[in-house]
């Protein structure tokens, strides 16, 4: 009997007790489904990180101002009136990055203005960013209509703004924006352009804001109009905070210089900011970090997979042993009709392998479905990779072969004279 024929016979035998077969493969189904679902989640997370790095620019570094922890002495100062809490990067510092670190090609400041953006008399959740004309270049972010900010906007302190695609919709719906003004806080800005749609989810390690929901104004204009100080009301207390630059994006000349430049930058900034009110983010490091977590995750997953397949395999072995005991008469009869021991061994091994193989297939379907559900419910990106499918399939099948061996050997050793025994 060829393998195909053996498989056909095994399928027929399993089909005699479909419910039992299904219950037997349950362990493998659940094990494989768990592995597929988990692997798709981690693949999706990796993809998301990569996507964010791509949006941010592979050759870019970010430096962020971080609010330092307030010490006791400062707490006293803070209780005085008119005290302004000052921290973070200075605009003047940014130019020094470029002179001291020749690998830095471009520096773009970002200042998040905590101002309300008005659509008519309605507040929106659109955020305002003061930045330079290079932002478009550094993020590879293009205007879809009109233009982005220019150096002359900054030099002339023009009150102009460029809208993210989402902001444009919120402010004007489908009405034209040309020649219109937008009210930001108390000041008005003339719209000169609308940016292309740039999709990037605001999640994961990089914490990218949604570029589409922003409007961009010249950095110098913003500082001139609003200054660096902003006041925030928290539970009745007014807190005045002075930050010149919330974030700077640095473009590095070549990719292999990013990590060393990041290191030098940290050194430089630590000296200038002993209070540690900054953070250097190297996207490439994030990738490495995510790969490290990935590795841990993979080890954990592999252990769970191994364990569940062990349990599933033992389940298969258990049922197949019972099968052999119940089917002694069939085995004896087959032997009487001329089956060799190895024919019987193959027949029963095939049943075990088919059980785990079908279990593996069901598990893959269930796992992929589960991943899809998680994507829909939790909004996480997931990806069922062919590698995961092949791996799960191969391991499940191998488990069937390993755990089916003993029952198959037992089947082959059944004494053929049972064929003639009458119970």
């Amino acid at each position: 009997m060829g393998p195909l024929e053996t498989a056909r016979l095994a399928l027929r035998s399993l089909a005699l007790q479909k419910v039992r077969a299904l219950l037997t493969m349950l362990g493998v189904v659940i094990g494989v489904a768990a592995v597929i679902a988990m692997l798709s989640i981690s693949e999706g997370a990796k993809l998301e990180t990569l996507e964010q790095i791509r949006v941010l620019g592979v050759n870019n570094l970010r430096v962020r101002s971080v609010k330092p922890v307030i010490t006791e002495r400062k707490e006293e100062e803070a209780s005085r009136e008119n005290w302004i809490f000052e921290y973070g990067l200075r605009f003047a510092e940014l130019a020094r990055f470029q002179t001291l670190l020749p690998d830095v090609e471009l520096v773009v400041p970002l200042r998040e203005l905590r101002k309300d953006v008005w659509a008519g008399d309605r507040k929106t959740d659109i955020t305002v960013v003061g930045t330079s004309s290079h932002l478009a270049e550094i993020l590879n972010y293009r205007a879809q209509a009109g233009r982005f900010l220019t150096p002359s906007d900054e030099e002339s302190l023009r009150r102009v703004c460029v809208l993210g695609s989402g902001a444009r919709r919120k402010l004007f719906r489908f009405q034209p924006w040309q020649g219109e003004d937008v009210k930001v806080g108390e000041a008005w800005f003339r719209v000169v352009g609308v940016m292309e749609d740039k999709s990037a989810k605001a999640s994961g390690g990089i914490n990218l804001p949604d570029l589409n929901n922003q409007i961009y104004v010249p950095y110098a204009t913003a500082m001139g109009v609003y200054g660096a100080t902003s006041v925030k009301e928290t539970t009745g207390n007014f807190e005045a905070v002075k930050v010149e630059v919330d974030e700077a994006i640095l473009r590095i000349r070549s990719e292999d210089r990013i990590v060393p430049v990041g290191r030098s930058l940290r050194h430089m900034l630590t000296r200038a900011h002993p209070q540690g009110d900054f953070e250097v983010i190297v996207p490439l490091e994030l990738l490495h970090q995510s790969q490290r977590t990935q590795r841990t995750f993979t080890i954990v997953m592999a252990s769970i997979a191994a364990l569940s397949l062990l349990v599933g395999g033992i389940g298969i072995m258990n049922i197949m042993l019972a099968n052999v005991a119940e089917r002694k008469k069939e085995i004896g009869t087959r032997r009487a009709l001329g089956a060799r021991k190895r024919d019987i061994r193959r027949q029963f091994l095939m049943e075990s392998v088919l059980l785990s193989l079908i279990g593996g297939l069901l598990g893959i379907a269930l796992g992929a479905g589960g991943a899809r559900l998680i994507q829909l419910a939790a909004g996480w990106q997931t990806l069922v990779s062919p590698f995961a499918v092949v791996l799960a399939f191969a391991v499940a099948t191998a488990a069937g072969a390993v755990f089916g061996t003993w029952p198959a050997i037992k089947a082959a050793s059944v004494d053929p004279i049972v064929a003639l025994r009458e119970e």
Partner: protein
Amino acid sequence: MSADPVVLFDRVGRVYEKGGLKVTALREASFAVHPGEYVSIMGPSGSGKSTMLHLLGLLDRPTSGSYRLNGTEVRELDDDARSSLRNRSIGFIFQSFNLFSQLDVVGNVEVPMSYAGVPRRERTRRAEALIEQVGLGHRRGHRPNELSGGEMQRVAIARALANDPALILADEPTGNLDSATAEAISAMLDDLHAKGRTIIMVTHNPELGARTGRTVRVRDGAILDGAA
């Protein structure tokens, strides 16, 4: 008789050992069955009929003596060789039919041929011809649990003939059938004999024994008469 015997038992013995205790189930049994003979083996319970059937069917090995099947000495053959000889040379008919419940009628009749490596198409063709021959053409796609006892035994007879064996071994073939059906099966065996088949049948039933050409009587593991 001129032709070489199909079965030649020469002082065949079978001793069971169970916890140091020796039970002689068959001692010094010598007999021959020639081509075309229809022989029954009869004897009281515990006399050694089943033991003889196991040995004849190559399901068990003698502990002494010599057994030639169609001229081949089988005592020293290994398990695979005996399986293959069994497959080609012996057709079994069982008391409780022993059909495979996962296969239909055609599938059941095909089993001995599939172990013989007969190609699929040829196998099906022959199986269908045999099923026609036992009068079950209208049942070829049915599963055993959809058949009556008599029909099942007819399928089993077709299956026993699948590889055109030199010897047919029947173990109480009508034991599980009502008398009318038993008569039909007996008639079918008579017919096979008439067509030149060599048949050995173990039975308790004297009427059935009387229909055969010769009866080998066994008692306490020894052949009383009918050896030749």
